[in-house]
C-alpha cells in the first residue's frame, strides 16, 4: 500500500514538475543599469543611423524654398529635437581663412532657412552612407561618432559653377539614461551633439 502510494505521489508530481517555474538563481545578482547589452547597443546604432538620415532630410526641407513656410518650420523644430540642447554646428571655412566658425544648431538652422543667396541654381547632394562607429563606454553612458558626406554646387546665371565643395560631417553621438522631460521617466536615449565639418580635397590637389 505504501509503495503504491509512493508511486502515485511521484506520478502526480510529474506534470507539476514539468510546469514548475525554475527557481531564479539570485546569488550575487548585480543589477547594472549603467550598461547595455550588445544587442541593445546595436539597436541604438541602427537608431543613430536613422537619426542621421532624418537630419539630412530636414536639412533638405529647410533649404528648399519651394516648401511651404509651415513645413520648413516643422523641419527646423524636428531637427532640433534630434540634438542635445547645446549642440554646435561647424561651418566650412573659407579656403584662406584659418578660423572655423561654429554656431548653435538653432541659429544654423534658422540661417539655413533665411539664407541670402548669390547663386542662380543650387544642387545639394547627400550620399547613401551614414557610418556609425562602435560605442565607447563613459561614466555617463556611451558615445560614438557618426559620419556623412555632402556635396554642394552653386551656379551663377551664366550656368557656370561659382562655388563647389564636398564636405565630411562628423557628429558626436551621446547615448545615456536620461529623464524624459515630457513623460518623466528614465530611459536610454540617443541624442546627436556637435557637428564637425571637414572639406574633402579634390584628387588633383597634392598634399
Amino acid at each position, binding site marked *: *500500500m505504501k509503495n*503504491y*502510494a509512493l508511486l*502515485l505521489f511521484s*506520478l*502526480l508530481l510529474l506534470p507539476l514538475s514539468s510546469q514548475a517555474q525554475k527557481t531564479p538563481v539570485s546569488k550575487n545578482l548585480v543589477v547594472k543599469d549603467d550598461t547595455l547589452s550588445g*544587442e*541593445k547597443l546595436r*539597436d*541604438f546604432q*541602427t*537608431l543613430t*543611423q*536613422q537619426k542621421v*538620415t*532624418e537630419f539630412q*532630410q*530636414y536639412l533638405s*526641407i529647410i533649404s528648399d524654398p519651394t516648401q511651404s513656410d509651415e*513645413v520648413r518650420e*516643422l*523641419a527646423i523644430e*524636428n531637427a532640433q*529635437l534630434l540634438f542635445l540642447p547645446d549642440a554646435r554646428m561647424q561651418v566650412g571655412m573659407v579656403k584662406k581663412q584659418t578660423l572655423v566658425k561654429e554656431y548653435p544648431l538653432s541659429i544654423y538652422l534658422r540661417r539655413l532657412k533665411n539664407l541670402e543667396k548669390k547663386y542662380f541654381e543650387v544642387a545639394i547632394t547627400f550620399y547613401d552612407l551614414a557610418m556609425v562607429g562602435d560605442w565607447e563606454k563613459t561614466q555617463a553612458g556611451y558615445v560614438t561618432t557618426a559620419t556623412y558626406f555632402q556635396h554642394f554646387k552653386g551656379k551663377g546665371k551664366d550656368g557656370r559653377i561659382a562655388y563647389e565643395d564636398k564636405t565630411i560631417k562628423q557628429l558626436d553621438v551621446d547615448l545615456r539614461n536620461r529623464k*524624459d522631460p*515630457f*513623460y518623466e*521617466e528614465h*530611459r*536610454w*536615449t*540617443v541624442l546627436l551633439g556637435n557637428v564637425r565639418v571637414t572639406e574633402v580635397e579634390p584628387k588633383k590637389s597634392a598634399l
Partner: protein
Amino acid sequence: MKFLGVILFVFFGVGVFSVQAQTLHAILVADTKDAVLASACERDLEVMHRQLSQAAAAMSYTLSEQTVSRDLFSTRQLSLVLNTLKVQPQDVVFFYYTGHGYNVRDRKDAFPFLHIQKNEELLAENPALKDVHELLKKKKARLCITLGDCCNNLSLNTRGMVNRKPYIRGLTVTNDSLNTAYRNLFLKSTGDVLITSSKPPQSSCAHPDSGSYYTRAFDEALELASQYNRSITWETLLKDTQRRMEQHSATKDKVSIFQINLRGKAPILANEPDFERINQYLNALADQQLSPQKRHQLLKSLNEYFTQKARIDIYVNTTLGEIQPIEQVVNRLYLNAGKIQRINLIERLSTLSEDGKHYQRAAIQEIWE
C-alpha cells in the same frame, strides 16, 4: 486498493485521451525544377517550412509535411499526395503552392490553375487551385488553408522575376508571442481559407535570392502578427500581407484575393479600433506615392485613432528607442516620407483609452530604408 486503482485509471485514462496529438498536415508544392523560378521556389519552401513548423509547435501539434518538388514535381505526385492524405477531425491542413500559374478567358473562377504540367498538349492535367481546396475540404479537417503563390494571367508566359530585392527585415520573435498568434489563427479557427497571390489577369513576382514576393509578405505579416498582435484574425493577416505587397514598387499594383469561411468567435470586438486601418493610416503618412497635400491632410485625422496626447513608444527591433507624443510622430512620418519603408503598429503593447475607441498609448516599429 480499489480506490487507488480508480485514481490511477482516472489519471492515466484522462491522460491518454487528452494527449492524443493532433496533426498539422503541410503539403508544400514547389516548382524547384523550373529554369526561372527554381531558386525562388527553394527560398519559398524554406520560409513556409519554418512557418508551419513554428505553428505546429505553438499548437503542440505533430507536423506531417509532404513536399512535392524537384524530381517529384508532377501532377501525378500531387494527386497521389492529395488522395492518400488521411486527416482527423481536429487536424489542420495547410496546402501551399509556389510556381507558375495561369487562368483562361471567360472562366468564372478567379483562382488560377497550377501550371505543373508544362506540356501544352497535357495542360488539362493541371489542377485548379480551387479544386485542390475543395478536395482538401472534403477531408473534413477542422481547418483547411490553401495558398497559391503564382500568376493568374491569361497567358502561359513565365512568371515575372524582378531584380529589386524586397526590403524585408528580419523581426525578432519570442516563443510567447509566436504561440499566441499561431493559436489564434490555427487553433481557434474552424473552417477554410483559400488564398492566391494575384487576381486575374495579373502575374506574380519573385526574386531569385529572397523568393516570391507574396510569400515573403505573408511570412512577414505572420511574424509581425506573432510578435505584436493580441487579436489577429485571418482577415487582418491577409489584408496586412496585401498592404506589404503594395509598399514595394514591383508589386504595388498586385492584388491578392482570398475567401474566408470560418466559424467561431471573432476575437476583435465590434467597437475596438481597427488595427489594420490604423496601421494603414500611419503608413500612408510616410508613403511617398501619395501627394504631399494628401499626406498633409492626413495629419488632421490623427484624432480618429489616437487621443490628443497619446504617447507613442518607438521600437528598433525589441529595443525602446524613443518615446514621443503622437503629434510629433505623425509630423515626423510626414516629413520623412520616402525614407521610412514601413511602420508596424505593435497592438500587443498598445493601450486603449477609457472610451475603448482610441489609443492613448501605442507602440510602433519604424523600418527605415
